[in-house]
């Protein structure tokens, strides 16, 4: 079966400085893949490239077998057709580290926006779906609150609901608990666990090794823009083959983050 996502030889540079040096990665349907690695190893850049928020310098990104990184997929004529760049963005959703909720909209409006204006749902149906998702993340009673009235954990739960509202083929999570106070991390991870169990296809960058161990089917270790090691979580996190992976995990354990 064709994987949902295939990344082949992905290279990304910022001002001549390579951040990703040829990444090969595939994510199958219903698979949960965790990207781990030190800050600056390229995890976020990889996710942003996959979500077509950054232009890539080399390689290909295939979504359901179709190359969506081809510049021809971004032309006015093709971008909205199946396999086009905008169509691809519609079938993916990303949750950012800094939430990036729209501050001038209520929680409900944030979640209902894309279903309404991108996927053409009637306002009533979009609100209904949004409310359903907000209750799934436990925030139905705060549907009319603006983001500045919500805690970090609540904001990130709204952001997850907003991402799920477009019913994505692929859900990208970019260190979604890194900006949260420790006591708020649990409420967000519980929702991701629930989403993962429901059969979603997820690629997540994370520093929560314990969570990766529980939820991920596969863990990929990114180091200096190279995918150094990948495998089942018990192997990569338990008996890593690479020296760099061992060093990274030792630092994490020293910081008390391997639950």
């Amino acid at each position, binding site marked *: 079966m064709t994987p949902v996502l295939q990344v082949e030889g992905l290279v990304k540079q910022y001002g001549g400085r390579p951040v990703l040096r040829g990444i090969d990665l595939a994510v199958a349907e219903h698979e949960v893949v965790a990207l781990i690695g030190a800050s600056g190893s390229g995890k976020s850049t990889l996710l*942003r490239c996959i979500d077509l*928020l950054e232009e890539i310098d080399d390689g290909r990104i295939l979504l359901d077998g179709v190359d969506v990184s081809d510049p021809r997929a971004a032309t006015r004529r093709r971008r909205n057709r199946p396999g086009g760049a*905008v169509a691809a963005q*519609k079938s993916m959703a990303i949750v950012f580290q800094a939430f*990036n909720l729209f*501050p001038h909209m209520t929680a409900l409006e944030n979640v209902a926006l*894309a279903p309404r*204006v991108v996927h053409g749902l009637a306002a009533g149906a979009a609100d209904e779906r949004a409310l359903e998702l907000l209750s799934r993340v436990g925030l139905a009673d705060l549907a009319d609150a603006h983001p500045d009235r919500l805690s970090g954990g609540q904001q990130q739960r709204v952001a997850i609901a*907003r991402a799920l509202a*477009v019913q994505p083929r692929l859900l990208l999570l970019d260190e979604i608990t890194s900006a949260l106070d420790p006591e708020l991390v649990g409420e967000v991870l519980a929702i991701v666990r629930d989403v993962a169990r429901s059969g979603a296809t997820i690629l997540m960058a994370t520093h929560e090794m314990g969570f990766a161990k529980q939820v991920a089917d596969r863990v990929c270790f990114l180091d200096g823009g190279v995918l150094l090691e990948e495998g089942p979580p018990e192997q990569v996190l338990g008996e890593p083959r690479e020296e760099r992976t061992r060093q990274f995990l030792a630092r994490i354990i020293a910081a008390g983050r391997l639950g």
Partner: protein
Amino acid sequence: MIKDVPLSPLAAERAAFRRSRARRSTAVAFVSTLVFAVALWWAVTSAPGWPRVQATFFDPARAWESLPAVLEGLWLNIRVLVVAELGVLVVGLVVAVLRTLRGPVFFPVRALATAYVDLFRGIPVLIALYLIGYGVPALRLQGVPNDVVVLGTCALILTYSAYVAEVFRAGIESVHPSQRAAARSLGLSHGQALRLVILPQAVRNVLPPLLNDFVALQKDVGLISVLGAVDAIRAAQIEQARSFNFTPYVVAALLFVLLSVPTGRIADAVAARGNRRRSGR
């Protein structure tokens, strides 16, 4: 002060001290204002030419006489103002959006918008009024109005839109790029992201400077008098020519001040609300 919690003697003593300091500050401010006002009044009225100035600029009878004509002129100013403000909002926003378009395809549009802003921010308002008010009718084009009020309004819209476009552009650029990324990642098109996500935040961010530009426009609508439109200033000039007394100008000035004060207060209130919102209350 927290209700239901009795103040300790320490806190009560400190609160009394703060109250007494506040009373003293108020008294000092009151006295210094009074002294300053009296000194200013004395300096002006004791000037050798004061009786003459009083008779020429501050004649109550002449003021009362000229009021109806000046008020009628002001009504024209108000109508021009409303049209000009709406026009400035639309043109300014369009120019600002054009200037933010990316990509080589939009280079001519972007260059045109930039040239327009450079030109009309640089031209003194008076010269813009002359050029459009007298120059355009001289072209004798079919279907182009040659009413000085219409042309004067156009000149004001063109001049102020250049300023307001820059205010809007600053607002658009003040919205963090992550907002656009969030909108794009949800599949919103460039236009949808701009209209639904970027602009609402941009406008909110620049509301105080925007209102400031409107206060400036409010008094500059008086400049259409140079084209011969009978507005408040022109009406005052006609009255002045009849009686050789400048009091009608002072009447017009007072009316313009009265007109601008509410807008100024609205601008203050909006700014204060913005501050409260940012400080999370």
